[in-house]
């Protein structure tokens, strides 16, 4: 158990160091989402009503997440994959990758939120609830897309397949997260939003449990 935990932390810190060693991917990701938000800004040019604001925010998050996570397995060389395959426990690998992507996407989400508040006014009544939802949403998006990216990397197919396979799987998560955020934006009492919060946690747990169980089958080649 101790070695598993050790492996996990090693892998997460490896991912972080790899990202900062090659900052190009990080920068392009940032530019991608800022450019998308700017496109939304010059298309609308007015203040948005809360529902449109929320939908736009999550659609941009969805595309940024797909862009960010699609490469998480594809960028690894065949040799490195073989090296991991011999030495590591596959369930730990997927957990580490997912955790790193959650971290990445949460930070990206906060940056997106700041950019949104700059270009469009911030209509959120209950900011803490919204940020909690942002974290849970990033969690779910990362977990689903990381597994899908693992499937696509084994299929030796182009990265566009990640979006095709991932989007239908994300419908339940997106519906719930958009509902949760809408309620957070309108500033309802916590007791009203609590069922959605619990549903999100349940969904995220199911997703992580499934990728933990299923990923080892992808791994053996």
């Amino acid at each position, binding site marked *: 158990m101790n070695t598993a935990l050790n492996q996990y932390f090693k892998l997460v810190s490896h991912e972080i160091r790899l990202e900062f060693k090659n900052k190009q991917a990080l920068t392009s990701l940032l530019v991608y989402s800022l450019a998308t938000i700017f496109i939304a800004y010059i298309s609308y040019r007015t203040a948005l009503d809360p529902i449109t604001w929320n939908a736009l925010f999550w659609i941009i998050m969805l595309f940024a997440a797909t862009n960010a996570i699609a490469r998480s397995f594809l960028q690894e060389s065949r040799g490195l994959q073989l090296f991991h395959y011999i030495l590591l426990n596959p369930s730990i690998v997927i957990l580490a990758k997912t955790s790193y992507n959650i971290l990445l996407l949460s930070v990206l989400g906060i940056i997106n939120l700041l950019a949104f508040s700059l270009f469009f006014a911030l209509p959120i009544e209950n900011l803490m609830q919204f940020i909690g939802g942002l974290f849970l949403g990033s969690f779910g998006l990362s977990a689903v897309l990381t597994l899908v990216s693992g499937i696509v990397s084994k*299929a030796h197919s182009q990265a566009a*397949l990640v979006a095709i396979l991932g989007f239908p799987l994300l*419908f339940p998560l997106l519906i719930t997260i958009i509902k949760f955020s809408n309620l957070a934006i309108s500033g309802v009492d916590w007791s009203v939003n609590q069922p959605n919060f619990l549903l999100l946690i349940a969904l995220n747990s199911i997703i992580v449990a*499934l990728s933990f169980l299923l990923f080892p089958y992808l791994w053996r080649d």
Partner: protein
Amino acid sequence: MTIARSWWWKIGALLLLFYTYYEGFVGEVPRMPILNETIRNLYFHVTMWMAMLVLMICNAFYGIIYLNKSDLYHDLVAEESGRMAMVFGIAGLLTGMVWANYTWGAPWVNDPQLNGTAASLLIYAAYFILRNAVQDDHKRARLAAVYGIFAFVMMIVFIMVLPKMTDSLHPGKGGNPGFNKYDLDANMRMVFYPAVLGWTLLGVWMMSLRVRIKKLEWIKDDQ
């Protein structure tokens, strides 16, 4: 797979479907406002979803078996049940659209159940895109099984859990009274349950036929 070749349950399916059609078109149904005679669609619309659900379970179940046994035959059954689930899903969507047009006034309304089924059709479309993207048989089977199991769980959440939490026009959801409360009387129940069984058996029959054709093609290719 001797059960696929035996005939008794196929006769049973045919008899049940004859009964469904007979009762569906000339049987006694309750007179309901708005629904009127369209209530007969219950035997042809709701039953499609039941058959689809059974075939989806089949798909996920054989996916799990494939992952444990690595026998391509199990993958074949999973693939064909996914295909048949799509056929029944489209049939259910079409019959539902006809029904919705006469009762809710439009063929497509923003309803969680409709969105759920549209999503499940998209998921199966993605499943087949994934299958086509991979060349190697065993790898295709493995990836498809993993995706299929994951998709199945997400879909169950979407079509079983989420509609219960939102308002729906469908009976029994979001404060609408359920069928059993007012219009699914004992008379209709006597047709509805056999109809579910009949359509499900028909779906399994169609699926098993496709599996057997594919198996014959494999044997031909080997020679």
